[in-house]
């Protein structure tokens, strides 16, 4: 009013509305809201709730009270929990190493020119496609102490007299569940790495061959470095799947014998749901988070970020 009255030239002053209306930042924010809401609702909230539950003494049927870190204190003194941490590490490390080596080997073979290539690749995926519970039940029979096909065959051939006690001895049981996990996990690693192998330009191999590289050198200095980023991603996922495995153990052993195959995930379930100790179960589940983060960090920093990939010298 005053400005107009004074006769000064009108300067374009955008109203708040028109400013907002033209703001790209605001638009961006608005478009992000659905995603953010989904993440908050389905990831942050349950995670936060889990962390909170882990610090209460909630049981099924009774709202708990805040008890701080008492659950964790008890767990540190709990031999079954400590055993489950050991089992989980053993399970994850051994299974992941085997899955990586065998998966990479399989990927290299499948990358060759083979007859019926497509069919072979489809078949390799089968263990991964079969629902875990079904393959676990198959292994349950394979490992049965009385009806094992493996034991039966070995006995018919005359190699053993007694049936193998696959799941009835703590160390045998650990080996058996790890084997089943490896069998199930290899296809994922193999097919993912195969995809990675196919992105490596053939010209690199040609150049290296002209330089007189041997097959081992081709693998060591061309394939492996080019594949590292894919390996990092694939192994991160593989480690996460293995670390949090549940179904296989639950069907095969329920954590037995003598809790030798109890993983943190299965123990968490056993304590929280059938046992009713929701707070303690949540605490065990939360205790897995630091380990998972460490696994991710390791593969992220250890494998993914190589300086040469970003243009510097490799040291």
């Amino acid at each position: 009013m005053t400005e107009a009255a004074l006769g000064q030239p009108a300067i374009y002053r955008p109203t708040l509305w028109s400013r907002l209306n033209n703001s790209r930042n605001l638009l961006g924010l608005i478009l992000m809201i659905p995603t953010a809401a989904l993440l908050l609702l389905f990831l942050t909230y349950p995670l936060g709730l889990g962390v909170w539950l882990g610090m209460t003494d909630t049981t099924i049927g009774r709202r708990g009270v805040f008890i701080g870190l008492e659950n964790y204190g008890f767990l540190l003194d709990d031999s079954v929990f400590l055993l489950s941490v050991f089992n989980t590490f053993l399970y994850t490390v051994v299974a992941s190493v085997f899955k990586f080596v065998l998966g990479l080997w399989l990927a290299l073979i499948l990358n060759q020119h083979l007859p019926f290539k497509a069919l072979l690749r489809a078949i390799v995926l089968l263990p991964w496609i079969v629902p875990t519970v079904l393959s676990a039940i198959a292994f349950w029979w394979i490992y049965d102490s009385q009806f094992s096909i493996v034991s039966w065959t070995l006995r018919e051939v005359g190699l053993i007299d007694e049936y193998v006690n696959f799941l009835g001895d703590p160390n045998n049981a650990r080996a058996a569940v790890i084997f089943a996990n490896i069998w199930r996990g290899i296809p994922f690693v193999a097919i993912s790495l195969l995809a990675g192998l196919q992105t490596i330009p053939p010209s690199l191999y040609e150049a290296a061959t002209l330089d007189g590289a041997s097959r081992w050198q081709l693998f060591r200095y061309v394939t492996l470095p080019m594949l590292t980023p894919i390996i990092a991603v694939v192994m991160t996922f593989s480690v996460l799947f293995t670390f949090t495995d549940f179904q296989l153990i639950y069907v095969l052993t329920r954590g037995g014998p003598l809790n030798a195959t109890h993983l943190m995930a299965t123990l968490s379930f056993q304590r929280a749901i059938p046992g009713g100790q929701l707070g303690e179960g949540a605490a065990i589940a939360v205790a897995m988070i630091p380990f998972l983060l460490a696994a991710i960090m390791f593969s992220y920093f250890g494998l993914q970020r190589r300086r040469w990939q970003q243009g510097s010298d490799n040291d």
Partner: protein
Amino acid sequence: MSRITRRDLLKGTAGAALLGATGGLAAPAAAAELSFKPEAGAKLRVLRWKRFVQGDEDLWTANTQKFTKATGVEVVVDNEAWEDVRPKAAVAANIGSGPDIIIGWYDDPHQYPDKLVDLTDLAEYLGGKYGGWYPVSVDYATREGRWIALPLGAAGNCLVYRESWMKEAGFDSFPQDTAGLLRLCQALKKNGHPPGFALGNAVGDGNVWTHWLLWSHGGVLVNENNEVAIVSSETEAALEYARELYETFIPGTISWLDPHNNKAFLAGEIGLTANGISVYYAAKNNNSPFVGDINHANMPVGPLGKPSELNLFTQAMLFKHTKYPNAAKEYLRFMWEKEQYEPWQQAAIGYITQPLKAYEQNPIWTADPKHTPYRDTVARMFHNGHAGKLGYASAAAMADFIVVNMIAEAASGATTPKEAMQKAEKRALRYYRV
């Protein structure tokens, strides 16, 4: 204190008097017929465990339809795998919504007693009419003198053996005590028909026989004051016994889950195990060549001097969130009355043993003498929190397999009996700390 009215007290003492009096033949002064008038337009949802024996479900459904016909109350019955009922019931109790009636397991009602409708009138009526409840039924279903659940019975557990192999082992009849059982097992093993009992984390079979083993020697996880008392000479004796018994077992039993012993027995791999009547039922259904050779015996009595079994006890809970409490009570009354209960028990071929003494007369128990031992399983059992109370701790301790693990550790020689019971003590203290 103030919650107990004079009326409750009278009812309580009358109930106790009835229970006391029903030991003999004297028919208790039968209460007048009781019935509840269903609310107009009532509908009920019932959640129960999925049958182990087909006849159970068939007759349960038929009885329910009969109820609907008689009262016009629509009833939907959902069946869930038996291990899933417990978490579902807990959720229903927590959120105050869900099925009106849930037929759960063991000490479920003691996890959320405030959420359950008082069934004292119904329980007293049924007890009065049908010869009284067994003591363990009262333990499981009452809290502070009030009935918070209605026992349905228990999936009884007996020793299942091969008659001819027992005779071959030099026994004319099945041994009645733990010492005799050990001798039989040793002889069976010598003849190549070893026994096998589940020692893995088997929710049903593992818990049931290991608790019997502990209790039969006088060991208890907790004493009458609900204090952990597992470290004792009695427990040590039980563990020594377990070790000797384990030496006779077929290899692999510490990995056994619930189905393993059934499979091994039906395949003729083992000569003796502990199980429900389902092995016999499966053998009959599959025309097993040795079905006639299968026989049953009650769990033997140990140094304790009296039966001390654990069986999978099951009971109905009526939740306060129901909109139709009278219809629900009427449904329960109807299903528990002789006209419905006995045919149902027959259809389930005795898989469930009655919680009420009068149903001992059910012809199913004598129609085939092999059924008879299962008749007595509820009379011979303790509750799973023995000798303490039922509650959070008893449920959690059993779900964590404390007793199963202790016996498996000591039996397999993974630890000494002393170490095994000290470990169990530490684990039990966690749950019994409050």
